[in-house]
């Protein structure tokens, strides 16, 4: 059924259709609306057979999820930014134990400085924790991916993180098609755990493993994600057949077949990129883009196939490896092993800075002429930076950096972007 609704609410409806049995979460902007929506559904009885647990911290949220999942319940939680870091230990624990928990990350920047707006630093911080990571491009995909996520998680016994851009998607009203309960039931069967706490068949879960077997346990986790590379497209294809729309999968290409310049990105910014690609195409540029959905496992082979014919690749990412450069860029570079082309890292949108068509247009034109630096911070205020560096060079006690920058910038409330 078509609805015009807030992204978080669409996600909540999607989760509810998956018949979750235990939901636990701790509030943090910008995921709060998702869990509030679900909490209300449980209270009214609209979402039946579901325990909603109000936990005292994100660490507790993931821990409650671990217990519930280990006891055989289909379990869901959500967090972002600081919250994800606070539960970091438990995040690794969940994947190490092979528990099929599904978690939404309302992508938000990590502080300090404290920042509530969107970028990918949070999910990136957990990229090697062993969770499958899927990025949604639209609110429709955000809803759809959660349905696929439970299927994926339970088939592999591996937890799945669905990343949804905070504010940009979570707080945006969009048209979505909410499937019916019957449709979802046909796609997602009841949870059959591989391991479960059950008095009639007692098992010990979570033993210490020493050097004699640790490597093998970790290898099997890697192997699981490699199997996901095949399973993710399968489930996406099945979804398409059953629900009638393309959703999920490893990646999607847009006008890349004869492109000289290909832009690679994760999440909602792909929409803006596609608009710019269309604009530039009408003017005769050979440009295309790739939207990666599955970041973990990273689709090395599929990506290589999609971009190897290009002259240059521009990786536009809302994340960065401090002191090194790009994070997504690393994966892209890995996929191009042996292929020679020009690769550019563009770090953009950090802390919620808007990524505009105008900036992208300029950026892609520069790229097409190969007039880009290796690593570019899009729309960096060079004056502001230079001023602060000069200020810090003059004296020792210069006070907090962030506050100094803000003071120089002036009243920000009056700015549009």
């Amino acid at each position, binding site marked *: 059924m078509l609805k*015009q609704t807030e992204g978080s609410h669409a996600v909540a409806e999607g989760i509810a259709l998956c018949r979750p049995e235990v939901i636990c979460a701790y509030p943090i902007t910008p995921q709060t609306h998702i869990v509030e929506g679900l909490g209300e559904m449980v209270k009214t009885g609209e979402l039946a057979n579901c325990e909603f647990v109000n936990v005292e911290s994100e660490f507790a949220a993931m821990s409650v999820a671990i217990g519930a999942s280990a006891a055989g319940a289909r379990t869901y939680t959500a967090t972002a930014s600081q919250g994800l870091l606070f539960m970091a230990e438990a995040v690794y624990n969940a994947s190490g134990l092979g528990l099929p928990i599904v978690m939404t990350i309302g992508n938000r920047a990590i502080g300090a400085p404290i920042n509530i707006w969107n970028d990918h630093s949070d999910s990136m911080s957990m990229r090697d924790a062993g969770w499958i990571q899927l990025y949604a491009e639209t609110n429709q995909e955000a809803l759809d991916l959660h349905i696929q996520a439970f299927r994926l998680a339970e088939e592999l016994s591996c937890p799945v993180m669905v990343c949804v851009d905070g504010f*940009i998607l979570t707080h945006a009203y969009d*048209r979505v098609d909410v499937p019916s309960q019957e449709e979802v039931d046909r796609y997602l069967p009841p949870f059959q755990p591989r391991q479960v706490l059950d008095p009639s068949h007692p098992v010990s879960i979570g033993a210490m493993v020493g050097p004699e077997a640790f490597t093998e346990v970790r290898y099997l986790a890697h192997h699981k994600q490699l199997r996901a590379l095949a399973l993710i497209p399968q489930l996406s294809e099945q979804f398409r057949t059953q629900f009638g729309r393309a959703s999920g999968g490893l990646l999607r290409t847009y006008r890349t077949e004869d492109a000289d310049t290909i832009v690679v990105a994760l999440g*909602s910014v792909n929409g803006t990129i596609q608009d710019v690609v269309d604009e530039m195409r009408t003017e005769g540029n050979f440009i295309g883009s790739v939207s990666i959905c599955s970041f973990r496992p990273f689709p090395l082979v599929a990506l290589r196939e999609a971009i190897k014919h290009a002259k240059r690749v521009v990786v536009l990412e809302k994340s960065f490896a401090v002191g090194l450069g790009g994070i997504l860029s690393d994966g892209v570079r890995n996929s191009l092993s042996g292929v020679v082309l020009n690769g550019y890292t563009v770090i953009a949108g950090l802390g919620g800075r808007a990524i505009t068509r*105008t900036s992208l247009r300029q950026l892609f034109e520069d790229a097409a002429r190969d007039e880009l630096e290796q690593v570019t911070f899009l729309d960096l205020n060079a004056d502001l930076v230079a001023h602060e560096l000069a200020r810090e060079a003059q004296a020792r006690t210069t006070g907090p950096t962030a506050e100094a920058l803000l003071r120089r910038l002036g009243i920000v409330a*009056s700015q*549009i972007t």
Partner: protein
Amino acid sequence: MFQIRIHGRGGQGVVSGAEMMSVAAFIEGRHAQAFPSFGSERMGAPVMAFCRIDDKEIRLREPVLEPDALIIQDPTLLHQVDLFKGLRSTGYVLINSARGFDELGLNEFALGFRPSHLFTIAATELALKHVGRPVPNVPLLAGFAAITRQVALDSVLAAIREKFPAPIAEKNVAAAKEAFALATRPEISHA
């Protein structure tokens, strides 16, 4: 694509106004996108919301930088924030005020635009009259519908009824109807 930018302060229903606008467009079978831009989360802080309406899927995710219509819910923002940035010369401006553009000190500004696209409407007063709360978003939405014809009044009323519970919805409907009528009167308060 038609792009709207709404300016106001926290607590004035800027965001829900944009949301209702998108629902009204959806009811007419069109694609619509509405999203907020917050500063810090507190009452009284300047807030913006954006809405895009189109007949095909909207992929764009940047803020509305070149609005086709501006709705200004709080005139105290007028000389503080660069509200009109990016406004197209054919754009519409709807300001929540009982005063005209002249009295608001916007005469010079108005020169660059089509007079028939500039309006003020006493939305807060209308809201107080019908709903009893100084939240001007609904009358402004109806005014927007009247002036730009991007959405029909009926769609706006349906969006209102979807958002609010019954008794409050009807009060808002009354406010919307009066605002719409006011905005379609020939001798309207525009520049």
